[in-house]
């Protein structure tokens, strides 16, 4: 009996000791919450990381998914036209198309015309769809010359459709105000002799209006570059060919 009670006492002591040990080693509520928080943050971070390729290629994935939808059908068009009207409707469309094409043909110039590309500084002399001649030009430099708070000039070649208003052989340049300002010279009166320069515009010029011209140049090494004050400069041979091909009223398309 004494032995039994002694062993029971020993076991209860052991039990108490192990329970105390367990209580000591059990993590606190705060530690558990911290671990859960770490798991939560890690999970969300990985989730965002995994989602990143989806977000980055979202539109592409959507486009890909749309491939599996059925394509549009012709039925609604057939319902609109009606089965018995197909041939009549088609013939009416053909007539309509021919009419519109005829109206569009009016816009095609009769005779040669010129196309100027200000971005690449190139020209094409055209007749219908045929390229008669092409080469390099110089166009506006996109420079703004500032000569005071209320005085500035912008040197760019205008875009759009123009007509040759006049053709001149051996043109004389009447220098505008900016030509003097640019050289640091005082601006002379309107008809002062210093305004007139000979030989700088080459052998020919074609006037487009508003002070813009197509003319020759002394600075042939700058052909193909945007260096002018708005006019279009051409090499001698190209200028002669274009001058002879175009008439007063011929169209010049500049883009």
């Amino acid at each position, binding site marked *: 009996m004494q032995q039994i009670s002694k062993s029971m006492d020993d076991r209860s002591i052991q039990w108490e000791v192990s329970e105390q040990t367990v209580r000591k080693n059990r*993590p606190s509520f705060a530690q558990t919450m911290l*671990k*859960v928080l770490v*798991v939560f943050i890690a*999970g969300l971070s990985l*989730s965002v990381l995994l989602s990143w390729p*989806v977000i*980055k290629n*979202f*539109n592409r*994935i959507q486009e890909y*998914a*749309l*491939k599996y*939808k*059925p394509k*549009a*059908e*012709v*039925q*609604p*068009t*057939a*319902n*609109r*036209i*009606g*089965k*018995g009207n197909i*041939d009549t*409707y*088609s013939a009416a*469309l*053909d007539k309509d*198309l021919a009419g*519109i*094409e005829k109206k*569009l043909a009016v816009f*095609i*110039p009769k005779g040669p015309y010129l*196309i100027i590309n200000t*971005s*690449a500084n190139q020209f094409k002399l055209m007749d219908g769809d045929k390229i008669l001649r092409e080469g390099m030009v110089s166009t506006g*430099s*996109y*420079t*703004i010359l500032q*000569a*005071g708070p209320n005085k500035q000039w912008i040197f*760019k070649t205008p*875009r*759009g*459709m123009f007509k040759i208003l006049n053709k001149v052989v051996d043109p004389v340049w009447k220098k505008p105000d900016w030509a003097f300002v*640019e050289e*640091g010279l005082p601006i002379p009166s309107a008809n002062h002799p210093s305004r007139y320069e000979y030989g700088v515009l080459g052998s020919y010029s074609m006037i487009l209006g508003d002070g813009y011209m197509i003319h020759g140049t002394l600075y042939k090494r*700058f052909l193909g*570059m*945007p260096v002018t004050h708005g006019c279009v400069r051409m090499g001698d041979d190209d200028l002669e060919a274009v001058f002879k091909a175009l008439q007063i009223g011929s169209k010049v*398309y500049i*883009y």
Partner: protein
Amino acid sequence: MGSFFRWFWRNRRIQVIFFILIISLPVFLIVYGIILPVKNYQPSIPSSGMPGLQSDTASGGHVSLDPGQVEKIRAIIRKENERAYLKNKLALAEKDSIYMVLNLQDSALILEIKGIPVKKARLIDYEISNRFALINHENLLPWISSPFLLERDLSTIPKEPIIVKQAPKDTIEAAKMNTKPAPPDSTNVFFTLYFDRNLELEIEQADPPEKGLSEKVETYLNLKKNESTRSVFQILSKPRQTDQPMKIKLVISEIEARAIYRAIPARSRLILKL
């Protein structure tokens, strides 16, 4: 750290929660952002502001077609598209400004002035949204039946490469000034044109960028990425597909891309031929 992993390894519930957390966002994006919107997508273009073409009730109703008649209807669809295209050309030829024609049938992006093509850029490659194939002709035709108006653009190059020069005070100062022409702009050409009626045209040069990407190109690409990320959230908040832009991406040569971008005015128009 070791105790954390031991705790994690032993705790099945925590492992399940962790796994669910990881897959939650990707699954949400795929289901709610892609599968559901695509499944519910009803092809139409309400942003056109135009009603679709109506069936002629006098001759219509639902008609059954044999293969020969289907071919004839397809030919009619092509002719109606051609008519819309030519009418648009006629309308713009009567105006004074430069406009664009995107002819996907002939793989060309054309600049025209008064009905005359002045620049024809061959499309080296292009991609159009798969939405186009899903929208029937009755809804698409009104959408392309008038020219699109350019509302805004985003580009790596300036429209006009302006240089500001101060006028010299005298001839001595003028003589000292630099008269050499500015070197040509070698920035890689990427631009996006945003038109009305939800059309977006993205153009990039075919030539690979030289010497890495410049700051301007990186800024452009970052802006596009931000736009794309914003659109993700827009899609999630409004799963209906019909408000999404109709995108077309073109690849053309650098010289042509530059010329076209510089030539088009701020409120340019575009004629689309699909």
